[in-house]
């Protein structure tokens, strides 16, 4: 294992630089909020938010694969950790956000008021 030491630390610093750059890009976008992205909606969410979420998933990938070394584990361990999470999170978010949007519609279109 000793022979791979040098390349390992190099890789770690590379990932650190990458994660920092992504965070800085996110913050810059978050501060200037370009109208072309912020005002355009796609599936009830503006494009800027989509970019943030994609960048976050990108960061999450690097943290789990490079820092937590899940890429180096056996396939059975790797997928019994990653697959349930990916499936359940997508499923949960999908049904719950749709429900939230539905509740909003119900309040919005009916004569009920929740805030006045």
């Amino acid at each position, binding site marked *: 294992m000793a022979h791979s030491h040098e390349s390992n630390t190099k890789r770690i610093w590379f990932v*650190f630089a990458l994660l920092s750059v992504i*965070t800085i890009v996110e913050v810059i976008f978050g501060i200037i909020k370009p109208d072309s992205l912020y005002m355009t909606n796609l599936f009830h969410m503006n494009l800027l938010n989509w970019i943030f979420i994609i960048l*976050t998933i990108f960061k999450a990938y690097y*943290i789990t694969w490079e*820092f*937590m070394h899940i890429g180096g584990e056996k396939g059975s361990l790797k997928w019994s950790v990653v697959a*349930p999470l990916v499936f359940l999170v997508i499923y949960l978010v999908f049904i719950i956000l749709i429900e939230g949007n539905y509740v*909003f519609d119900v309040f919005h279109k009916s004569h009920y008021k929740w805030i006045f």
Partner: protein
Amino acid sequence: MAATVTTATTGKTWDGGNEPMGASYGKLMMWFFIVSDALTFSGFLAAYGFSRFKFIETWPIADEVFNHFPFMHGTDAPMYYVAFMTFVLIFSSVTMVLAVDAGHHLKKTKVAIYMVLTIIGGFIFLGSQAWEWKNFIKGEFGAVETRGGAILQFVDAEGKRVALSEFAADIPTDRVEKKKSEGIWFQSGPAMSTYSVEEVVEGFKANPNLRVRTEFLTKEKKKTILTREQSIERLKETHYVVEGANLIRNEYGHKLFANFFFFITGFHGFHVFTGVMLNILVFFNVLLGTYEKRRSYEMVEKIGLYWHFVDLVWVFVFTFFYLV
């Protein structure tokens, strides 16, 4: 081991030393703990998303809430500080992974140094979070609540936020805070605000350039600002002065906003705190040479997994609370 072996297969599977999925017991259990904890956090964040979509028209704008930076009082610095916190946590993740890396080569001193750096990073993060909470709880501008539960904020003619202290009238009053401990009241009343509702309303009427800003978002994704006449009309429904945030109401807008903020960042902060404590424990074991004697620094690796997970959660909290 050989004495109890009846067949080669049972010996291999049941007589110890077997590692399912190629990972030691501790590491495997840490992974599955992380799976369950990740689902817990996903549940929280999904619930936050639910409430946000449910109240999409009126949800507070995060940039206006988290815009403080140390030693830069009064300047609008959205997100810089949270970005700094994110950076600290990612950096402490890097030192942790460097400690794990040094552990693989049994370099005791290096492991110890990187563990110290990780612990320091954890403490900086916790301190930053405490500071964020302090700002959030204290509030900056103050607002009033209507009887229907809406939050009304105050802006000047240009749409810039105005604090209650800048315009509230000074009306002599004999109001006192009702406290059970004082023995006169059977029940305790709500905490007494700095200004009474009358003081705020009279002060508003005396300053013709003030307007009321409601929670509703316009087409331009800005908060609605009422006209002067509408503002005065709206203020008639005021029943409570809100300063800062607590679990019942907050000056930023929807009640759930503060509740989710306290709950999710608090739960994450509790994880960071636990992580720091575990790191300290492991650090002392490194110094004592516990892992040196074992000829294995796997404990550093297991704690490292937890620490990276905490960082991973923060990456999502950062996105959903501050960016999106």
